């Protein structure tokens, strides 16, 4: 049995597929592909696959991770990739299939890009700069134990921040994985709390998933 890891894109209209719906969608993709995928052996056998990280509804991604098993040891990664791609919905595409090397727990952070669109983008840009310069960026975060206030600043690494016409384009790294997960929406919340300037966050995209030493995870 081959233990495999697929990296796939979820872009365009596919960003409206929720995480729950993605599960169902992937099951049907496997069935359409007729690949010899390994089934669980319980009372209700189903193809085994699991996603490393959930992606918020409306986010695009270039780097979604799915682990699954193929019972045929001879089948090439390319064939598996192509057969999956042949039956994928619009906006979803397998970039690569390779043996699982690192453990899922090795995931430490994820890189995001997004645009903040505003009628007063200049002012918004200044507000962003001010927020980034503040000693702490506190925001309320929902956790399993309820709502708590966290300071996201120490764990947030801004890679890029530019004013482009009506948009402030940003790129940042945030903690991800089994321990701490920060969503860019936390930063948007903090920005809304810090300034009255109205904006819309668009084109939010997960670009890469990284390990502790910033190596690419997959």
């Amino acid at each position, binding site marked *: 049995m081959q233990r495999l890891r697929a990296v796939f894109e979820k872009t365009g209209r*596919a960003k409206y597929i929720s995480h729950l719906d993605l599960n169902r969608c992937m099951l049907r993709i496997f069935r359409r592909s007729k690949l010899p995928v390994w089934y669980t052996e319980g009372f209700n056998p189903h193809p085994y696959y699991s996603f490393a990280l959930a992606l918020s509804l409306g986010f695009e991604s270039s780097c979604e991770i799915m682990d699954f098993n193929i019972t045929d040891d001879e089948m090439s990664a390319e064939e598996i990739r192509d057969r999956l791609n042949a039956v994928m919905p619009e906006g979803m595409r397998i970039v690569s299939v390779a043996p699982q090397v690192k453990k899922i727990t090795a995931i430490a952070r994820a890189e995001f890009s997004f645009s903040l669109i505003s009628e007063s983008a200049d002012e918004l840009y200044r507000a962003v700069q001010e927020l980034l310069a503040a000693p702490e960026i506190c925001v309320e975060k929902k956790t399993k134990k309820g709502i708590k206030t966290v300071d996201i600043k120490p764990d947030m690494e801004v890679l890029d921040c530019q004013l482009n016409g009506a948009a402030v384009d940003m790129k940042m790294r945030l903690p991800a994985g089994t321990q701490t997960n920060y969503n860019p929406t936390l930063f948007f919340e903090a920005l809304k709390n810090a300034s009255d300037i109205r904006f819309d966050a668009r084109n939010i995209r997960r670009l890469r998933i990284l390990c502790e030493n910033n190596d690419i995870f997959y």
Partner: protein
Amino acid sequence: MNLKEKIEKHLLKVQKPSRYIGGEVGSIIKDKSKVDVRFAFCFPDTYDIGMSHIGMKILYSLTNQRENYWCERCFAPDIDFEKIMRENDIPLYALESLDPIRDFDFIGFTMQYELSYTNVLNMLDLAGIPVFAKDRTQELTQIVVAGGPCVCNPEPLADFFDLFILGEGEEVNLELLDLYNAMKKQGAGRREFLVKAAQIEGIYVPSLYSFDYNEDGAIRSMTVTENAPQTVKKRIIRDMDKVFYPENFVVPFTEIVHDRVSVEVLRGCIRGCRFCQAGFIYRPFREKSPDTIYNETKCLCENTGYDEVSLASLSTSDHSEIDEMLTKLIDYTAEERVNLSLPSLRVDNFSESLLEKIKKVRKSGLTFAAEAGTQRLRDVINKNVSEEEIMSTCKIAFAGGYSSVKLYFMMGLPTETDEDIIGIAELAQRILDLYYATENRPKGRSPQISVSCATFVPKPFTPFQFEPQDTRAEIERKQKLLLDSVKSKKIKVSYHDPNVSLLEAVLAKGDRRLCKVIYAAWQRGCKFDSWSEHYKFDTWMEAFEDCGVDPGFYANRRFEFDEILPWDHLDYLVDKKFFIRENMTAHKSVTTPNCRQRCSGCGVNKAVGRECFCKD
């Protein structure tokens, strides 16, 4: 900003956005510059419901097989998205191209239930298409059409539609599109097209027919113009093994009501339950062969990736080759790890080996549509299920590990007395007693008998089409009587809102004078009437009052046998004389055997020109 960008700007503010953006596997995209006729197939309810509709799947694939025709899907937006659409000038659009449906050649609705009528008006309005047919352009475009079971009496909708398609659409839809395509090329106008379309069998153009009424409110006469036929005959498909069936379904991302492959196994019904419209309007009885059913199942499962399949019909047990069909299907589904969900089957005449196989797949609950509480009333409605059958099946089921049973009944049936209502509670009690008397019943589990009680709605093209519906006060009294008659906490009773059933009866049996009522109700905010949280009974009653229309005239009045019924000019191949005969037989509490046992002379064999149970 194009429409797609405009939609996407707001999409994340609404529930289940994947319903509004298309892109599903199996959806068909064409190059619109190479398309002659564009058809928007509209379901007047939300995506989750409409996407489950098998007729849409058939006609969608069928129309799209023709390279130069493009059929797209369109559903009613939920309340949250409708608000956004109206605030941001987003017109109703089709899911494949995301183009506004007002630019389409055909806007076709499927009318599956009466309580979706206001949604049609709302969708036309959202699309920017005039709600009344008379207000639409004189040019040949934007033809608003409807089909489906409710168009067997389309009169309450007559003012809103350009034409209705009666019966099965697989052939007539393409004939209609072909005519349109040819006439459009000749530069014909709307009226010219409608007059010509009325000559196609199965096409009813309401604007070519007019009615006047007696002083007592009943119809006096009908006038036909432009050489349109005096009676319009519904269309049927003769050979179910040759009829088109899709090789693929659009596979939704979000979970829908029937989220599985469904394969039609037969059309029509041999049972003749006297309240059941489907049992008459889909006649004659026709089956697909086990091979066809197997091939369609396999093909659809492979193409969609669904791991569940269900069989669609009015009564799958009545398939003449059920044993062979299920054996074939179960062998396939077990091998491919597909769940086969079987509807309630009569298991009495199955072979031992098939029963063993069925045991492995059946997981669903135990359900009986007993419909009435006493044998006398079951005879009146011709529901040929006996208490002995129910009891013997329950006994086997309890011994086999079942501990809950669902029972469906109707209240307000013709000739019903208090004894029949009390009979419902007594039947439930006897099933409960049987449970406790069954020695090898499941241990440590509490039994539950669920009694679900609908209100009888008289429907056109049934022997009970003449019958009045009980008044609301009477239904409420009977509901209370039933609750008082139930003595055990293990018996749970639920029933329908009689206010809803009243509107269903009015719209089912209504005539053209109801168009203005539907319009007035919609203007006052009525929509999604089939959703209890949206249903506004008081608003509907205000609309009736404003229009000077008495709902009781339609719902609670007995229609005379010699009266001109609003649907008398439509021919569903079953004789009115047969319905009258059956009605009189019902009042004598006498049953009519099913069609396989003895032909009851409904007239469909004569209309079709062949006997019901032979291949031609």
